[in-house]
């Protein structure tokens, strides 16, 4: 009986705290040509949502972490999608299939992110800041 109660408590905790299990600090990192630029939180949010598509008069190359990573949860919270990978994916489905947005590239690891950042006007999200051009920090 006690065992069942414990399982029930664990299940309930999982149900009601599921969004809080992935606390992370994320860094918004950019390609070399954007190094030193200043962005406000609102500007970063609009860029990461594909609402602002141009910086320095050129199209932004957006890079997301993998949708199965914990970083995507933090990113989803920051851009107002409730900390849910599903909500973020649904948002991008809407942007893509209404022709409004170009889907972000996804980087499965830091090496891939660094490779993608070699392209001018790239803006991505990383869990590490060392050796990167960090323009903004997203913290929980």
């Amino acid at each position, binding site marked *: 009986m006690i065992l069942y109660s414990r399982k029930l408590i664990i299940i309930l905790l*999982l*149900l*009601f705290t*599921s*969004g809080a299990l992935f606390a992370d600090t994320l860094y918004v990192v950019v390609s070399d040509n954007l190094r030193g630029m200043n962005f406000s939180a*609102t500007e970063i949010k*609009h860029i990461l949502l594909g*609402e*602002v*598509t*141009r910086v320095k*008069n*050129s*199209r932004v190359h957006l890079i997301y972490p993998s*949708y*199965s990573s914990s970083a995507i949860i933090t990113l989803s919270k920051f851009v*107002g*999608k*409730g*900390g*849910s*990978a*599903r909500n973020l*994916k*649904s948002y991008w*489905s*809407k942007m*893509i*299939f*209404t*022709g*409004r947005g*170009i*889907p972000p590239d996804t980087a499965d690891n830091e090496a891939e992110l660094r490779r993608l950042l070699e392209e001018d006007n790239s803006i991505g999200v990383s869990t590490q800041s060392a050796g990167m051009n960090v323009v903004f920090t997203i913290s929980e």
Partner: protein
Amino acid sequence: MFRILLVNLFTILCMIFPAVTYGATFGMDFLVNGFGTVCASKSDLPKQAYVNIPYYPFATTLGVVSPYIAPAEYTPAYVGAGRRWDFLPNSKFGLQFTALFNDKFKAVTQLVGGSESMTNNNFYVQMDWAYLQYNPVDALDLQFGRVRLPLFYYSDYLKVNHAQPWVTPPEEVYFISAGAFQNLDGIRASYSFYWQDWTANTKFWYGSMQEQLSILNRDIIVSVRDGIGAGLQVGNDRFSIQGSLMRSIYNTTLNDPLSGLVTATQRITGTFASAQQLQSMLQDTNVPIVYVGLALSANILENLDLLVERASIFSRGIISTARLGWYGSLTYSFLEKYAMTFTYGYSRPLQTETNKYDAVKAFFTSPQYLNFIDKNSGAGAAVINLFQTYLGEQRSYAIDLRYDILPSVSLKGEVKYITPIDQAAYALKYLFARVQTQKHIWVYRVSFDFVF
């Protein structure tokens, strides 16, 4: 022949393009994205039913020939859900091609294929989007070509089921015009304002559209021209409201047989009030149709979302409809990959629709028609019954469960209970989707949705 070629082309595209989703050709970027739904539906409606179809072969040089009725067998279905599990009605596949010419110009084409019930074809492959877009600045989109009508909250991506919490969107709003007229050939402009966490998006559109439908065993042309509309959405991360309004001019060829019958009756019996009233309503050309959509969405708690939406369509035309529908959905997300959605829906005809039915009934029960034309054929009663199908009023309750297998792949299940209400005065009861029933019905749906 042309259809076979289209299907073959579609199949080849499906095989080729998932492998190449991004490329650079002739100095421009080229993207391919897609979406799909495999959906099985079932209800507890009967397997087979009959409907009496009236025929009027009266226009001969010898005078009026009595009308007659012929019972036609059909398979009842509620928005694609018939007695047996069926994968066809709600399954679909879409491919979108985007060519980015430069930072300001792009072309988008979206092909969608699926099973078809509103025409005599068994399937359709159509372009939902086909436009050239110009972005002079980030906040302004100008689209020229075939665009979606952005009337309701999910209208723009209605066929991308993966982006929605339900197996199928609530029909009380999204089936209000029976799935017709979701696109427009013309121009669409959208402008966004940003202020701190708030965004305001305005849309304007203008254009026309024509469709060929199969109604009462006849192919008819229905067209919409001078469609002009505007929409406004204001919101932040937790809350948004949306309103839209569209007016268009509607034409159809379906009213011709009835109009001829009324004229013939008056020729024989003389002019009488109910014939005059019906004849004036049957002048169903250049009829204005007005659509109104309102939506409110709110993130109430971290894992709890509310969406309430109301839609109305208003037309005084005898064939087009005047109806109101709304729904409220509460979605609870849990364990990262699961979501449960409870939806309550309601739909009823507007008084204008009831007035149309009353005018039809007054003429077809008049002594002039019954004694001189009908002569106990029952055809008049069949017409009355057909028009009663537009009066269906219903409530519905649905539970949808969603499991995200991957971020781009989801599995959903839905159970829906639909009950006809406030139709005690009528011999038969109808759901708003023009389905005859004497009781509540249950609908079950399972879907597998994906995007790439």
